[in-house]
């Protein structure tokens, strides 16, 4: 049985990183699982599941020189590779407002208390340097029902935080 690892890579973004790293992993007889790459504030970031017969130290050896060439920092965690078990979100929430500290904590704690299990979160700082706005999108499962979430987010309207919530009805045909 191969071992599963979560490989995290961070560095200044430039074209070709994904092609380069995935080729290096393939050449090292690794197999990829699920991955999520994002460009965050000009930084390249990726988390990718990698399966390999190697132990962690050997994995690090395989990646070291290539990551140095690409000026990437990397980190490897041993993980359980549980595939074919996606959770389907039933609610999507979009939040936007002028950027201020504590916003995400405030909103996500409120949603958590109302039964939200977050499956996916993406956030962006948009607007301008002098007038930044914060926008984040969450997909999740409403463990206590959609109405509980709607009720919980209602007070945000008076605080200049725009939250829209829509039910996701996944069609299977």
């Amino acid at each position, binding site marked *: 049985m191969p071992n599963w690892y979560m490989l995290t890579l961070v560095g200044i973004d430039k074209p070709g990183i994904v092609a380069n790293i995935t080729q290096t992993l393939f050449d090292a007889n690794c197999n990829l699982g699920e991955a999520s790459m994002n460009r965050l504030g000009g930084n390249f970031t990726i988390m990718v599941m990698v399966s390999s017969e190697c132990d962690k130290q050997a994995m690090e050896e395989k990646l070291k020189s290539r990551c140095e060439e690409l000026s990437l920092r990397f980190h490897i965690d041993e993980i359980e590779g549980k595939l*074919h*078990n*996606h959770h*389907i*979100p039933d609610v*999507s929430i*979009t939040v936007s407002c002028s950027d201020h500290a504590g916003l995400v904590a405030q909103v996500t704690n409120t949603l958590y208390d109302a039964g939200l299990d977050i499956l*996916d979160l*993406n956030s962006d700082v948009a607007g301008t340097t002098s007038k930044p706005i914060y926008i984040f*999108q969450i997909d999740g499962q409403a463990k206590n029902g959609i109405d509980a979430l*709607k009720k919980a*987010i*209602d007070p945000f*309207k008076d605080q200049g935080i725009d*939250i*829209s*919530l*829509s*039910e*996701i*009805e*996944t*069609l*299977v*045909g």
Partner: protein
Amino acid sequence: MRKDILTYPDLRLKEESLEIEHFDDSLLKIIQNLEDTMGESPGAVGIAAPQIGYHIRAVIVDVSGRKKIKHHGHLVMINPEITKWEGLKVGREGCLSVPDFTGNVVRAEKIKLNAFNQFGELLSFEMEGYEARAVQHEIDHLDGLLFLDRLVSRKNDLFKRKNYQ
């Protein structure tokens, strides 16, 4: 009789299905197989004949189990043809033929269509929302298309959701 559902990347899912010309017992038998297969697929609101290996233009759609939506009940549709499309909306879809994956797809919000039932009677429908989406998903199967062929960005919707607080 319940049949095995073809799953991606089975090439038979990419084939175009043929118009049905004879409304006979062999058609009714295939419809029954579709009914039985869909009935044993929890959560499924539709099924198309090519998903169980018959390349004929027959689908079943039944979204009546969903709360608070407009629908036409349990529908067997033969040679369905959409004649009018209106509006676009992003929605999340999965498929019996693509296990363990869901994604966002843009579909027409409202459609008009003609279809025969299993007895050869021509019917016309005006549909919207979830039911219209289900029909478009199933008709795609008849044209050899999967929702994977229509995926849009997982991160950003192309169109703002309407349901604002």
